[in-house]
């Protein structure tokens, strides 16, 4: 380590120790990555961005290396990423891809597998891989480490958790819900519109309704297609279990959410919880900082989290919505290596701890078992880590984006009462089957549900 870097690292560590009440940070292990050329990261302005921005500042202070962040709203991310990888030279050295988009980029051959940049690169064993969505097996066209190449890693592993107002639950003598029935019962006690909605989830057309219905579908034992990992794309979304799941989803929304449940998006849901107008709601873990920031929230210290439940007596079904840091093939070699150097640093225990303290959602399991988890500020960690055994990836195949569009529309039509649950699922099943057949997949259909 050069003298200049040593001074920089020591200054940064001191500054961070001063900013943080936890003395452990100063001694935490950070990687020495040496002097690297500047890199640019395409990153979304999601609720967890604040934590990531702080960790990048710490990296710059410690290493003297420059990182430029192109902060983009979710809606513009995909097109910027596409344009970058299709250009002769990518303006970005790390792209942040939503789990739904990864297949297009893996399959299109736009990315450099990380071991092709540095043959010795490997993820630390503690890093969560969210059902291997960061590996790509080109032959099987499936995301798996079994025969797959390491394509990236998650800077954020979003999963759903159930947020609830611990003060209201305590006052009403209620326990944190463990089933949909518990949610309905607590909603019945706490629902007093328009000042207080008993429970909220998203019904907005598109990704919102599809993503929020998934825990209902998975925990009911239903699926969208039979066994895509084994090449069996028989469409199963119109099963009786899926119908029950959709009916429960719609019923809870109609009984407990605002009447505009059919257009309720993530921003609206967070707003309802943060302004104290919802007693409980299902949202991704990334929403947590919004409830603890006194400039944005009227319920600081009053929100707790628990694992999203399922039907009484059944296992929960959590859906993963993780992000992926990947390196474009068209980025110059020296910047690819710099991107990897940043990654190596970012995934260290010290950086992940600092990331959590800055408001980010870490991706190392040892951060969740550290002393942080017992601190009130990090009371969300238990629900998050307890959710992991039940978490699974959905739509991890090339047609995923189109399937999401189909489901996003038909589920929304059921939510607003335009069509019945059975009709919505029958329509979706027929459309998904037609799409998969056109793509040459081995597919089929269940018998239609009675409408």
């Amino acid at each position: 380590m050069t003298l200049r870097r040593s001074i920089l690292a020591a200054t940064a560590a001191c500054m961070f120790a001063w900013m943080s009440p936890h003395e452990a940070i100063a001694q935490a292990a950070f990687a020495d990555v040496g002097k690297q050329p500047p890199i640019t990261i395409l990153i979304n302005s999601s609720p967890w961005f604040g934590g990531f921005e702080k960790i990048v500042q710490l990296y710059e202070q410690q290493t003297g290396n420059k990182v430029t962040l192109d902060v983009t709203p979710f809606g513009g991310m995909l097109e910027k990423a596409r344009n970058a990888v299709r250009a002769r030279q990518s303006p970005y050295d790390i792209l942040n891809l939503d789990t739904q988009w990864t297949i297009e980029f893996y399959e299109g051959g736009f990315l450099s597998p990380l071991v092709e940049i540095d043959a010795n690169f490997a993820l630390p064993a503690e890093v969560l891989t969210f059902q291997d969505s960061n590996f790509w097996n080109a032959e099987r066209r499936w995301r798996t480490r079994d025969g797959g190449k390491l394509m990236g890693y998650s800077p954020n592993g979003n999963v759903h958790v159930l947020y609830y107002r611990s003060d209201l639950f305590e006052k009403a003598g209620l326990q944190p819900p463990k089933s949909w029935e518990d949610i309905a019962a607590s909603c019945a006690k706490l629902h007093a519109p328009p000042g207080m909605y008993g429970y909220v989830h998203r019904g907005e057309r598109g990704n919102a309704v599809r993503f929020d219905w998934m825990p209902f579908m998975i925990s009911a034992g239903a699926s969208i297609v039979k066994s895509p990992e084994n090449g069996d794309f028989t469409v199963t979304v119109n099963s009786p279990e899926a119908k029950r799941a959709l009916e429960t989803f719609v019923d809870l929304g109609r009984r407990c959410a605002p009447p505009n449940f059919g257009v309720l998006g993530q921003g609206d849901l967070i707003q309802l919880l943060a302004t104290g107008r919802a007693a409980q709601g299902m949202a991704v873990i990334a929403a947590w900082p919004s409830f603890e920031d006194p400039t944005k929230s009227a319920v600081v210290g009053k929100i707790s989290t628990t694992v999203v439940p399922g039907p009484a007596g059944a296992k929960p079904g959590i859906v993963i919505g993780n992000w992926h840091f990947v390196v474009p093939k068209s980025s110059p070699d020296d910047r690819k290596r710099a991107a990897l150097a940043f990654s190596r640093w970012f995934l260290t225990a010290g950086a992940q701890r600092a990331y959590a303290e800055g408001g980010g959602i870490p991706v190392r399991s040892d951060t969740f078992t550290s002393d942080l988890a017992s601190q009130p500020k990090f009371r969300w960690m238990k629900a998050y880590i307890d959710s992991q055994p039940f978490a699974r990836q959905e739509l991890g195949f090339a047609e995923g984006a189109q399937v999401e569009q189909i489901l996003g529309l038909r589920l929304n039509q059921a939510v607003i009462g335009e069509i019945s649950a059975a009709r919505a699922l029958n329509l979706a099943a027929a459309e998904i089957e037609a799409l998969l057949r056109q793509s040459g997949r081995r597919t089929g259909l269940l018998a239609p549900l009675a409408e």
Partner: protein
Amino acid sequence: MRAVAARDDGEIDASARLGARLDASFRFWCLWPCIGILGALTLYPLLQLVPMAVSTIVFVSGESVWSFTPRRNFQLLIEDRVLQAAILNTLVFVVVSVAIEMVLGFFAALFIACLPRARPFARTVMILPILIPAVAIGSMWKLIYNYDFGLLNQIVQLAGFGAVNWLGDKHLALLAVVVVDVWHWTPFVFLILFAAIESLPRDVLEAARIDGASAWQTIHRVILPLLAPALAVAALFRAIGAFKAFDQVYLLTAGGPGTATELVSLHLNRVFFEQNQLGYGAMLALTVIALTVVTILSGRRALARS
């Protein structure tokens, strides 16, 4: 002497003809840069859509691979149920919003033109909405329509009624979107018609008044016929604009709930960008362009006939 004069006349004629030919030739060649730029920026991208529209495009090893699949794309177009809803919604959106904008714009122009004072001030205030970016308008109206916190529902509740689900009710959502378009674009119609009203011949209006025409008769028999060209231009421009409406609808409802506010522009965006179906997206784009041109031409013909 006469022979010399005739020869001189002939020379002058030849020289004039040569000058005229050079002039025409010069004008002809002067057009080419313009045609070239127009071709490069408009026609070339448009023509590029044609091979895309009959292909399926996938990316392998970072390169695009095209396969010729016109039947597949056409079949997708025919079977696209969301497109059918989108076309119907777009037609309703264009007809209703343009009709309201024309009526409001006309009467606003007439009213402000008749103001004895403060006309420049009123005109400036009227055109403010056009100056606001569509993104800001979408966000502003989304807040106004918000079920729990919105201004509109606060007024409705103060008046003793229950909150209205403006954007979430499938029967109201398209109307709510039309209202925003009317708010945004009526000033555009106003601006065109106000300029036209200001330039109407005063003697004709004076003659109508002396002949004893009532206000309604003056409007109906004198002003409206004189404004016909300006009305046609305003209607045409607004119809084109309404066909292309995207940004504020995307921000307000993103096409929902269900397909209640799905417009062709939103559907095209979904297919092309969200689903990454480049071939079918191109076919959809060509279809939308063709539909727009046919509708606009039909409208123009109908206007010309009337």
